[in-house]
């Protein structure tokens, strides 16, 4: 019956029908709206509430943003322009203050003819960071180094840097790009030299100071090579003691003598000229670079079997974590003179960096301790089974994994520390947020300007901190070794 039926059918469709359009309520924007915004009574109420919040914010602030003025000499001039353009009673943002005072927000009271020096130091920071942060991915390394080179050189040209130093920066960038193609690890040499170089660029003065500081480890290395055949213990002690003796006893004099023989110096800039983001970045970067190793040591000490070492670490960490950073900064500015030998008076920025470092290191130690605790016990036992001694086990097996686990915590500690650099305003330094804005408001032309400087500074802090947190997410993904 079926075949007769097949023969008698007058029409057989040989092409597929096009699929029917989904119902209008189940497709496209309507469906998205139904699912995401109006899926039930509660959700609908929430959506309306959200729209009201957005509407409130936009209606209150839009006209202010829309009436932005970028060219004016004073706040009253700004208000006059706004009143003329948009009518009496109109509000508007006066970004002209940023246009006129941007250099104070960025460089503080640094001599304007030397602005290129911090710029160059900041640009070279990317070269120093390259082997640590993005050495594995060649593409990203090229992009970051290339962009940093172009931006730095362009800014240095704009800031009238001398040709000699322009050439120096260009050579360093080019060299770094070429060297990193073949041997990315070689850039570590630059990373080690960078702290001294950066300090010299920022504060200036004689180049012999940093060079003589560098002589210390070289002397220690020579002592180690000489002593090693006789006794490895004596070699280690000598390698540790000789640099310290050199720094305490002779480095200063040697630098002065060398300077009197062959003068090699650039104009010195004192610490009270530092301010704005230059100060924040200086303190932030030094604090970050110093607090990570110190934090690792503290975390290992806290997990040590040695009772004394462990209790000292616990006392130090809990003490630092128990007091606010402001109190420690006041210790740096008021009490350090009591604790040091009479007559010593060293730089306030250095004191603040020390305190910020100790503060961040205590938090870092707790974060890393969490990472160490999260590592399965089998890893420690495997290291022991391989016959590795304590430091080899830590360096090759435990720390790489523990640090990887603690990346999010480490980066949020960094972010917290960078945000906390604004607190230096309370010990009389010119942070970009409070002191610098107060200084700008102190001039007659910008008296009474509040929102624009705060928004500008907040926006830059947001960019840096948000960038750091995104970088940590990228790093986590890149270092993930499981479930690939």
């Amino acid at each position, binding site marked *: 019956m079926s075949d007769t039926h097949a023969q008698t059918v007058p029409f057989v469709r040989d092409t597929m029908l096009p699929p029917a359009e989904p119902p209008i309520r189940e497709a496209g924007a309507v469906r998205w709206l139904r699912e995401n915004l109006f899926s039930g009574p509660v959700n609908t109420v*929430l959506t309306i509430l959200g729209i009201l919040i957005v509407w409130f914010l936009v209606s209150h602030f839009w006209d202010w943003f829309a009436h932005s003025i970028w060219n004016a000499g004073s706040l009253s001039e700004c208000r006059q322009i706004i009143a003329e353009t948009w009518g009496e009673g109109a509000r508007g943002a006066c970004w002209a203050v940023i246009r006129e005072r941007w250099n104070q927000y960025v460089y503080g009271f640094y001599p304007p003819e030397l602005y290129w020096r911090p710029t160059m130091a900041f640009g070279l920071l990317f070269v120093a960071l390259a082997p640590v942060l993005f050495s594995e991915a060649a593409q990203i390394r090229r992009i970051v180094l290339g962009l940093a080179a172009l931006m730095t050189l362009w800014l240095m040209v704009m800031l009238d840097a001398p040709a000699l130093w322009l050439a120096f920066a260009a050579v360093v960038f080019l060299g770094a790009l070429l060297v990193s193609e073949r041997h990315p690890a070689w850039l570590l040499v630059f990373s080690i030299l960078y702290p001294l170089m950066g300090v010299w660029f920022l504060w200036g003065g004689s180049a012999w100071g940093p060079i003589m500081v560098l002589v210390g480890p070289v002397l220690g290395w020579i002592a180690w090579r000489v002593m090693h055949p006789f006794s490895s213990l004596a070699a280690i002690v000598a390698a540790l003691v000789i640099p310290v003796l050199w720094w305490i006893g002779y480095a200063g004099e040697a630098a002065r003598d060398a300077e009197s023989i062959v003068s090699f110096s650039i104009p010195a800039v004192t610490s009270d000229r530092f301010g704005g983001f230059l100060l924040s970045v200086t303190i932030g970067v030094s604090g970050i670079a110093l607090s990570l190793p110190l934090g690792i040591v503290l975390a290992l000490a806290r997990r040590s079997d040695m009772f004394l070492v462990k209790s000292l670490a616990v006392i130090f960490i809990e003490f630092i974590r128990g007091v606010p950073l402001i109190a420690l900064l006041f210790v740096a500015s008021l009490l350090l*003179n009591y604790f040091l030998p009479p007559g010593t008076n060293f730089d306030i920025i250095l004191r603040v960096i020390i305190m910020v470092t100790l503060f961040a290191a205590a938090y870092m130690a707790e974060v890393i301790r969490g990472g160490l605790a999260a590592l399965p016990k089998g890893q420690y036992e495997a290291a022991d089974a391989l016959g590795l001694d304590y430091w080899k086990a830590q360096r090759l097996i435990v720390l790489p994994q523990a640090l990887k686990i603690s990346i999010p915590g480490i980066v949020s500690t960094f972010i917290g520390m960078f945000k906390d650099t604004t607190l230096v305003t309370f010990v009389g330094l010119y942070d970009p947020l*409070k002191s610098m804005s107060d200084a700008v408001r102190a001039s007659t032309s910008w008296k009474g300007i509040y929102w624009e400087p*705060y928004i500008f500074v907040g926006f830059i802090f947001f960019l840096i901190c948000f960038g750091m947190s995104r970088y940590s997410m990228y790093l986590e993904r890149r270092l993930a070794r499981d479930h690939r």
Partner: protein
Amino acid sequence: MTDMSAPGNPTFRPSMLIYDRRYRSMTFQVIVFILVMALAWWLVNNTVRNLAALGKDFNFSFLWSRAGYDIPQTPIPYTSDDTHFRAAVVGLLNTLIVSILGCIAATFVGIIAGVARLSNNWLIARLMTVYVEAFRNVPLLLWILIVFAIFTEVMPPPNAFRGDDPTASMILFDHVALTNRYTAIPTLAMTNDPGSLDLGARITFNWATIAFVAVLIGGWFVRRMIGAWAQRVQDQTGSRPTTWWMSLAVMTVPSLLLIWYFGLHMVPPELRGFNFTGGLNVQNGLVALWLALTLYTGAFIAEIVRAGILAVSRGQSEAAFALGLRPGRTMNLVILPQALRVIIPPLISQYLNLTKNSSLAIAVGYMDIKGTLGGTTLNQTGRELEAILLMMGVYLTLSLIISAGMNIFNSRVKLKER
């Protein structure tokens, strides 16, 4: 520890102090001990010499001399004739006030924002993401300054509320007035005042306050007893008696009775002359600091809450539903205990951070312990060493108390491993 005379053990040689693992840790600890002691001796010696050179001594007797400065907001009676010690106590109480208010409000904000960020509602989830990222990535000091500037620059002066057609109006049904000098809020008054308990040193507690606290604590204990009774009945008979109305009654009825007995009522602030009177005029420094601390810490707590909820796997609630538990009991018995275990340790450190961050009060002129003991007292007496050490000691004690208290709570909710 080790048997020195055991066969095969070589006799002790000095080099074993370094090369033998059994003795090396001892040697190392002795060296560390000597170095730490030397450092401590060096610091103390320097301090003693510096103090001698400045002709100062190290004593705390300045705490009992006349302070001579005013504090705008004092939880306990204080005049400029009181001692520096009393000023420090006032500062400590101010720190505690802003910290406790901040912790409570930040917890509420954080829970709401954290849950809302996980909401299916696209708009709400995005709004909360913007809130969390904006507050987490900008220094707290900026938020404090901005909120304070909103109060001092945008809010109207008190006399703008005057007249038949005022330019400004009060909010929340004429109960709160935001002015550029203070925030006027209602205060509580009683028609049947029972008097106060005098603790000496001009510190008094109203009997009504004590009664309320006693009733609340008692109610809480009775509620726990009801819970235990319900559990017992459930264990014996298999069905749990309905207790929510008993708990509700135990917690509210005694308080309502007390309110009726004392005639407790609210007195809204009223404009008299140039200022608001009748209510409580809260310094704008406190309000700004509290708001900024709340919003800032709330953003961090939101992330903690979100992580805690995400950490409870979906299978847990599905299993609870499969066992026939209703959504409310699933939340109480299955999800919350597991989420709290993840949430509480970082929450403790957020409370600690908030308490320490309250020292930013100096940016808005709120006299907390940093403002009194570490500020005006320090400047007037010139005793930096004593004042700062004392202040750090106070903060340290506060932190240790908070973390000890929260650790006890944590040990009660954490996973009971066997």
